[in-house]
């Protein structure tokens, strides 16, 4: 009897989970479907769902008009570079806060997080002027630094949380065996925190990939990533929704695929230490 209730309950939970999942995924699905419609079908009322003349024309137009490969490479370099740099800085920072805390550690953590509360547009002009002076405008390196700084609080916080789950005694034992600080972090701490580091990397890749304020405002023709590629198909005077959807699909496809394949690591990392 108990088993049948559990099974029914399980089926119900599964159905609810699928329904919520589909609801969240629906805007992305709709964008993908629209990318295969003509402009007239894209705005049809009532909307057409699956039964329309599927066309690849929008993708053809987008590929002809824009240098997709260049935008894609810029996105990979900027998102990848900023995440890598962020992790390199955040691992030692999180180590010191987790294992050698001081009286002010909590305050420092809160202060780091508080920088996320500042509206980005409030510092646009100062950062733009700094970029002009340093010759960083429209360069990938400039964006890597800015996005790293923006995401650094999140990286430090996430790593700090994961590191706190690792017993300090293990690191102490390593030290007793003669490990220096470098060996301790690289050979002992990092392998143990790998699921946490992996999920931090993935989450920050997604955040950096989708970042649209700084990537639009600090680039022109050379370093513009896929966010600028999407923005070039949006228009308040003209109905280009099918083409915009094609561009959006092409922009989100790489990160969507990456997320799909790494979802196990992502979930494992995010729930790391949640159940004892």
């Amino acid at each position, binding site marked *: 009897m108990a088993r049948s209730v559990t099974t029914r309950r399980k089926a119900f939970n599964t159905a609810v989970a699928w329904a919520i999942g589909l609801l969240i995924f629906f805007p992305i699905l709709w964008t993908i479907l629209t990318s295969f419609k003509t402009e007239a079908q894209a705005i049809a009322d009532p909307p057409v769902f699956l039964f329309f003349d599927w066309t690849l024309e929008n993708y053809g137009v987008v590929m002809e008009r824009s240098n997709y490969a260049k935008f894609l490479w810029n996105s990979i370099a900027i998102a990848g570079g900023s995440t890598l740099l962020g992790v390199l800085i955040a691992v030692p920072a999180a180590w010191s806060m987790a294992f050698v805390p001081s009286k002010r550690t909590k305050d420092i953590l809160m202060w780091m997080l508080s920088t996320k509360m500042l509206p980005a547009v409030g510092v646009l002009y100062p950062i733009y002027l700094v970029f002009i002076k340093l010759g960083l*405008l429209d360069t990938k390196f400039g964006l890597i630094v800015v996005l790293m700084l923006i995401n650094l609080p999140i990286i430090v916080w996430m790593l700090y949380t994961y590191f706190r789950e690792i017993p300090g005694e293990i690191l102490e034992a390593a030290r007793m065996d003669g490990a220096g600080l470098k060996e301790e972090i690289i050979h002992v701490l990092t392998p143990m925190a790998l699921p946490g580091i992996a999920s931090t990397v993935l989450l920050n890749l997604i955040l950096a990939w989708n970042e649209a304020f700084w990537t639009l405002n600090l680039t022109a023709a050379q370093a513009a990533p896929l966010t600028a590629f999407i923005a070039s198909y949006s228009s308040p005077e003209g*109905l280009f929704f099918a083409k915009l959807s094609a561009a959006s699909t092409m922009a989100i496809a790489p990160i969507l695929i990456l997320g799909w394949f790494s979802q196990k690591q992502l979930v494992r990392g995010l729930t790391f230490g949640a159940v004892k």
Partner: protein
Amino acid sequence: MYLRNALRAATALALIAGATHAETITIATVNNGDMIRMQGLSDEFTEKTGIEVEWVTLEENVLRQRVTTDITTKGGAFDIMTIGMYETPIWGKNGWLVPLDDLSEEYDAEDILPAMAGGLSYDGTLYAAPFYGESSMIMYRTDLMEQAGLEMPASPTWEFIREAAAKMTDRDAEINGICLRGKAGWGEGGAFITAMSNSFGARWFDEDWNAQFDSEAWKETLTFFSEMMNESGPAGYATNGFNENLSLFQQGKCGMWIDATVAASFVTNPNDSTVADKVGFALAPHKDGVEKNGNWLWAWALGIPAGTQKVDAAKQFVEWATSKDYIELVAGKEGWANVPPGARTSLYENPEYQKVPFAQMTLDSILSADPKNPTVDPVPYTGVQFAAIPEFAGIATEVSQEFSAVYAGQQTVDEALEKAQAITNDAMEAAGYR
């Protein structure tokens, strides 16, 4: 010795390569049909001059923010910027744009339509060359007008439009008599209601920069607009902008639509529009007894920021893209209906272009708008659907939000006008105008 010679040779080669390396200019532009066409044809410019062109195409509002940041900081990220009639005189006055007072004789700057040249100049100097110009006009369904037993006059009154809209409305058949912009934003619903208010004799400011929303003319404008739209407009018109109305019109759900003249080529294109062969055009309406029509004036123009290091190359491109030859080039490749309209007098004298159905109405609409005298009473600003002062965009966006709240039924006309008056006067006082 061998090494020294090799180094010399390498240096010489690098110098030669540098000298022959083509100059590259970066152009920031908006995403619309005419601009994308120019992008496609720019290879011809490169072939002719050896100057390479790189494009940064952005959505209009993103572009405006992006180029404003760059020009105010002299960032130099762009060599040419696509700007409008609002920015050009303000930026020209501030010395942020390279004056275009030495264009070549073949370019024939005198040929630029006077309304366009006037709106893109400051103190008599041209600061941006018009790529295309637009006004607004009535686009209407000839079949529905006939069914209603009415005939569209060449220059209709608002009273006629309201009556025709009511007669054309058929809620069961999902036909709305009239579709207009109600969306908040100075360039969206704000532009429409400002142009409409001119035709009721209203104005934003008196000659001492005092807000005029407490005038009878503004009350009449806003009351007329909201009543007519509630009677015959589409549901949720408070959030409709250009694209939403274009979509409704193309699907046969609007009897009339008053909006940008560039929309004419969309609604008459049989690939996208279900009513392509049933569209007529007329001048934007005016209130009975008022001689000003409710149409606006706008141009997308190419300006050269003062921070660029490539002024000569940029000027060459601006001349090429806004020349008579460019118009011929587009006509030869894509037909006369697709040439950028509204910038040059000679285009409207061309017998081939005169055959395009909306050509004459576009010109008549442009000619009937006067940015120096936009409304009945004198004003201290230039601009038809805007006042060309830096503070306007912010103020008008707030004011249009109050108006949209009226359209959505969230407040009364009197409440909105009272708030608009306070918002405008406060902002003008803070900016030192009053």
